[in-house]
């Protein structure tokens, strides 16, 4: 296990919370693009968990787990909210939605990570990123 923490989290704490996880991932010698993608996905997932899942309730907690298996990074983010229908998200890239101010978080996660799975009615997301650290070491 690379990281495991369940804590009360508000939007102001997302950056600091994310940094503590990313420091662990940085130490794995992953390339900058991978780190960028993981940071963006993690922070978007945390924002969704706090804002939409826990409805910014300061009593509610967010669980984050991260581990490496077979050169893949697994990140799980789980909130205490009622979840949402992950199949029902609007496409933020369609012309009619392009000027919308919200709705890009989940889309960006799906673009930046290699596998994304929602469960527990949408209150849990598991994201997978291929790290390619072996390939980087060979280069």
């Amino acid at each position, binding site marked *: 296990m690379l990281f495991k923490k369940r804590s009360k989290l508000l939007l102001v704490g*997302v950056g600091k919370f994310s940094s503590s996880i990313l420091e662990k991932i940085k130490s794995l010698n992953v390339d*900058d*693009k991978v780190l960028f993608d993981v940071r*963006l996905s993690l922070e978007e997932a945390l924002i969704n968990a706090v804002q939409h899942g826990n409805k910014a309730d300061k009593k509610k907690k967010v669980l984050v787990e991260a581990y490496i298996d077979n050169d893949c990074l697994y990140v799980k983010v789980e909130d205490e909210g009622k979840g949402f229908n992950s199949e029902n998200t609007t496409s933020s890239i369609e012309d009619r939605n*392009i*000027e919308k101010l*919200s709705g890009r978080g989940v*889309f960006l996660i799906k673009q930046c990570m290699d596998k994304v799975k929602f469960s527990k009615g949408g209150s849990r997301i598991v994201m997978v990123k291929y790290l390619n650290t072996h390939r980087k070491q060979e280069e």
Partner: protein
Amino acid sequence: MKITEDRKGEMLIYRLKGDVNLSNSPVLRKAFESCTQGDVKKVIVDFKEVPYIDSSGLATLIELLQRLKKIGGNLRICNLDEKVKGIFEVTRLFKLFKICDNEDMAVEDF
């Protein structure tokens, strides 16, 4: 985040330094709001020293564009880092924003 403003007639250039994300969006939004209250019609946002952007940062830029359009103004974005540029590409926001390679090209593009 550090925001530097450079006014040239009806043109205003914002040079940003730091992440454009949820933490910094309120500061950026406030800076952008003040520009559309004067006679500024052309705005350039220079991303030369921006290594990271999230969905909240993108929304702040869309808000600025919408505000400028309402007053007959326009926006150019320039000097995008490769990874940040990738975010504009996957979200297809390059269709909404005019993106230029550098500040000189952005000025000329108006």
